[in-house]
Every structure is written in C-alpha cells, then in structure tokens.
C-alpha cells in the first residue's frame, strides 16, 4: 500500500464517516434526553432534498444549506410532538416519519426535477485549514474537504462541551436518566426533550446536506440508504458517550472505505463480504468489544407526571 493510498483511505473514511458523525452526535443529544429518534434517517433525507432543491432554486449552496435546515425543523417538531406530547411509541413514529419522508421527497423530486434529471445542483466548496493544507499528501487527500465537515466538527465539539459543562447538559442528562427527579427539581422535562429533538433535527439536516450538496452535489431518491440507522447504531455502539460514538462513526467509515481500497490493491475478497464489513464489525463490536451498553434509563420512555 503506497503512502498515497493510505492518505486516500483516510480521506475516504473521514468523508464516509462525516454524515454519520453529524447525525449521530445530533441523535446522541436527544437520546441523552430520553427520546429515541428513529427518524434521523428521514430527517437526513429531507435535509438532503431540501438542501439540494434550495441550492438549485436559489443558485446558492449556502442558501440551500439554510433551507435544508429550516425544512427539517417542522419535521423534528412533529417527531417531538408525537413522541413527547402525544407519548407515541418512538420507534413507530420514527419509522412512520421515515416512510413518509421517503414517499414525499420522491414525489417532490419528480415534481421539481422530473424532466430535468441532468440538472446541475450547486454544491458547497472544499476547504483545507491553512497550515494543514500544506502538508504533503495529507493536505490534499485528507484535509481538503467540504467546509461543512469542519463546521460539523466545530458543532460536535460544542455539543461535547455543552453536555459536560453547562446547566443545559446536566438537565438533559437528568431528563434522560431520571425524568421524575428532573421534574421534581423544577426542570421542564418535556421542553428539554423538545429542544433536544430540535438539535437532532438541525444536525441531521446538516448530515443530509453533507450528503447531497456537500459531498456529491446531487440528490437521488432515498439517497440516505440507512445511514440514519447506522448513526443510531453508532450511538449505541458508543455507549451514549460522544467520544466513543465518534470513534464508532470513524470505524464504520473506515470499514466502508476499505471496500474500495482492497479491490484497488488487487486483494480478491467476495464483494458481499466487503460490503457487509461495516455491519459485521459493528456486530462484533457490540457483541463483545464494546462491553455492556448502558442506555439512559428513561430512553424512549415518555414522561408523564
């Protein structure tokens, strides 16, 4: 394996991990608050679609990104309303919303782009942090990425800090592990959970936009293809800790990237095996390596006084 290949592998892993990472850290926030958002998948898809449609309609990828995020907020609010106020089963509503979004974006895509399948969608540009950009090999292959990736990293860092050092983070934790105690300490449990779901919405929208206007500058029907579910897997795998969740995302990204490196190296492995590699690794990890998982005690339990 040449050095260049290693660099490409690293770059590829990061790119494949990026949408997972954005979505997973968003999902982590709401799971920590006790809401299991199976709808990350749908939120990502809607974000991807609205971002692409917005960028196409306005000609500006930045506006597209803003539109993508704005479009997901009502969906997140709906998820929150269903699972927090109506106390609906969170897995059901999540899957229902995913199905709804899949149908709706497909229909809308046909309406908007139906006859123009070769339309160009403006995308976000790449950027490399000064300094790092000059590194040989790595500068080009690893650090030159859509700037959204860097924004995402900053946001993830911010989330990590807020979870640990702010009253909001503490309140969120309480809402997820001991909502009754939180309530009796005068915290607005439901409002906290609403807020957490909205954060998930924003992060998932960013993840979706990363897929559509960030990485490949196009939208395709149902393009998330289970990335949202994998993000949830990463959260569980990460044992509801941000650092480990990020590591899980990178692992999934690397396992997927390996699928393209091995054939390029001339290693002959059945491609079915290569394609299932990320899932296989994840399975092995949750089965043993990751140890016993300890979910927030009130995860997916609606709170009612």
């Amino acid at each position: 394996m040449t050095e260049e290949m290693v660099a490409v592998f690293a770059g590829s892993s990061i790119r494949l991990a990026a949408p997972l990472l954005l979505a997973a850290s968003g999902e982590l926030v709401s799971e920590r608050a006790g809401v299991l958002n199976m709808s990350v998948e749908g939120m990502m898809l809607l974000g991807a679609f609205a971002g692409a449609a917005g960028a196409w309609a306005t000609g500006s990828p930045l506006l597209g990104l803003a539109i993508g995020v704005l479009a997901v907020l009502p969906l997140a609010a709906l998820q929150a309303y269903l699972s927090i106020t109506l106390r609906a089963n969170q897995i059901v509503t999540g899957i229902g919303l995913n199905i709804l979004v899949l149908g709706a974006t497909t229909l809308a895509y046909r309406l908007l782009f139906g006859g123009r399948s070769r339309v160009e969608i403006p995308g976000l540009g790449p950027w490399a942090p000064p300094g790092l950009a000059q590194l040989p090999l790595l500068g080009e292959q690893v650090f030159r990425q859509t700037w959204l990736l860097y924004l995402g990293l900053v946001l993830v860092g911010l989330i990590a800090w807020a979870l640990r050092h702010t009253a909001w983070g503490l309140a969120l934790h309480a809402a997820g592990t001991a909502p009754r105690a939180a309530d009796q300490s005068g915290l607005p449990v439901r409002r906290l959970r609403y807020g957490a779901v909205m954060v998930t919405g924003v992060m998932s929208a960013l993840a979706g936009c990363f897929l559509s206007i960030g990485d490949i500058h196009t939208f395709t029907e149902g393009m998330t293809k289970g990335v949202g579910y994998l993000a949830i897997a990463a959260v569980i795998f990460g044992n509801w800790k941000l650092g480990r969740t990020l590591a899980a995302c990178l692992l999934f990204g690397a396992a997927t990237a390996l699928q393209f490196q091995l054939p390029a190296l001339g290693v002959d492995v059945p491609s079915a095996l290569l394609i299932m590699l990320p899932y296989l690794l994840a399975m092995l990890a949750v089965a043993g390596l990751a140890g016993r998982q300890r979910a927030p005690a009130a995860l997916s339990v609606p709170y009612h006084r």
Partner: protein
Amino acid sequence: MRHALNIWRAGMRRPAIWISLAAVLGAGAVGLVLVAAMGVPVSDALAAFADGAWGSPYAVASSLNRSLVLALVGLGFITAQRAQLTNVGGEGQIAVGGMAATAVALYGHVATLPWGLSFGLPLLAAALAGALWGGLAGYLKAWRGTNEVIATLLLSFIATWMVYGAVQSEALLRQPMTSAATLPESLPIPESTQIPLLTGDYGMPLHAGLLLGLLLMAVVGVVLRHTVLGVQLHAVGLNPRAARRAGLPVRRLVVGALVAAGALGGLAGACMLQGEQYSLKAGFSSGYGFDGLVVGLLARNSVWGVLFGALLFGFLRSGGINLEMVASVPTALVVVIQGLIIITLAGAAQAMDRQEVAR
C-alpha cells in the same frame, strides 16, 4: 364459537378500532387529495386501486399472500415485544429463512418425501434458521447485555448481504453457470417442495402457508394472553431484576422470545420463497421484514392488530401497484399514505389506551 363472537363484540366496543379506522380513512383521504392535485380523477384512482387490491381472484390471492408474510413478521415482533424486546430483524430473519428453505429444498433430498415432508422440511429448516438468527441476538442480549435493537438491525444487514453472497457463488446456492450470462440466482426449487396452492390454480395463487399463518396467529395470541409463559415474558420484560429475583429463568425467556420471533420471521421467508418466488435472488426479501415490523408495531401487542395491520398493508401495496399502472399515480404516493397511517395511529395510541383503561 360463542366465545369468539364475544371477543369480537368486545373488540367492536373498543374505541381503538374506530380510531384506527378513522386514521386509515383520514390518511386515505389525504392520499386522494394528492391524487386530485396531480390532476388524476379521483374515481379513476379509486377504481384502479380497488381493481389492483381485490379486483380479481389473482389480486386477492396476491394481497393475501403478502399479508401472510407481513403477519408472520408482525407476530414475531409482538412475541418479542411481550418481553419488551424490540425485534427489528425481520428482514434478516426472512433472508436466512429463505436461504435455509432453498438449501434444503434443492440439496436436502426432500423432493420425493411423502406426506408433505417435501415442502414441510424446508419450512422447518427456515424456521430453525430464523430462530438461530433471532436467538443470536437473544444470546447477546441475555449474556452480554447487547442492545437487541442494534443487534437485530445489524444482523438484518448482514443476512441480506449473505443472500447476495450466497447466490454469487456456485459453491453456495448459485445455479450452475452454463454460460457467462447465467444469472446469480438459485435453481428454481422442485415443484414438490413448493407450498401447495389452496386452489391448485395459478389464477388464484393462494398458498397453504395461509392456514399455517392463521394457526400460528391463534397460538401466539393464546400463549401471550392466556398462559403462564405469557405472563412470565411480560414480567421479564417489565422488570428483569425482579423476575430474576422471583426465580424466573430470565435469560432463557429472553432468548426464547427472540428465538420465537426469529422462527416466525424465518417462516415468512420460506413462505415468500416456497409459496411465491420459487428461486432465491439477492434482495428477494424486498423490505417485507421492515413492513412487517411496522405491522407489529402498530398492532400494539394484539394479535388482532397484527391481522388487521397485515391485511391493510398487504392490500394497500397491491392496490398501489395498479394505481401507478392504470392511473399513472406514482407508487411513492402509497408510501406517503403508509407513512401517514403509521404516524396517525402511533399518535392516537395514547388516546386509545386511555379509552381502554377508562372502560
């Protein structure tokens, strides 16, 4: 019989049924509005839908066969759910079930066996394979504390790619390569290993798996509601520590619940393969495991719920196919309606529960 009638009457008094009906009709109405917005006459759309869903003996049979698969997966889901285990692995259980059924039907020398063993043994193999797949998640849950949602989900992805791999290799299930163009599929299974058609006529290809499905539905219903095992599963799910303290075999029950769910999923796979498709292809499970999961979720722990949900989704999809063909309404619309039904039912669930408790 009188008993059944009483259950039915009690059921009809439940507001849950009316709320569900309203949700379905409401979602359907939204769908029709969308149809109208697309410029398609509503009556045409309705006619096309009805024709596709139940317009001919063939349509009815196809819808019912599909409902059967969804019902089996849904049954598995509520079985595990009784122990508070969320089995999202239906798709993978179908996949391994299909592989096992194919393997036994083609290479298990069962084709000439008498008394229905020729198709019964592959069915059994599928159930065992599904049970193994579900049990794996159960084992991990009971002994290693692995979250079953993620385990079953990952096992689903793995199993579907296993099918992909199995039909790629002649050493596994691929048919012999007679030319470079031989498709990556298994050989068609022998006729005697196919599940017999109830009518004996391909014009109405309703197969005998339906009877098995109804039987299993009754069994699961009774076990979950009216047996010691049902209460024990429930207790284990609600408070595993207390259940262990009380001396219940917690781990065995956890594994057992997922084994049963997996077996039902495996049977669903066998029904798809031996009842309809007759040869194994990559992607043969077609997302039915996930649809069945939704049926199970919406059933809210009731076998009747599974029955109605499976019928609803089975006929909905059949109608949707025709809707697009005849009235040029994209099938995506049916997907939207499906999503709306799920969301409204889920949203109304709390209200339904309240009503039931207040009774």
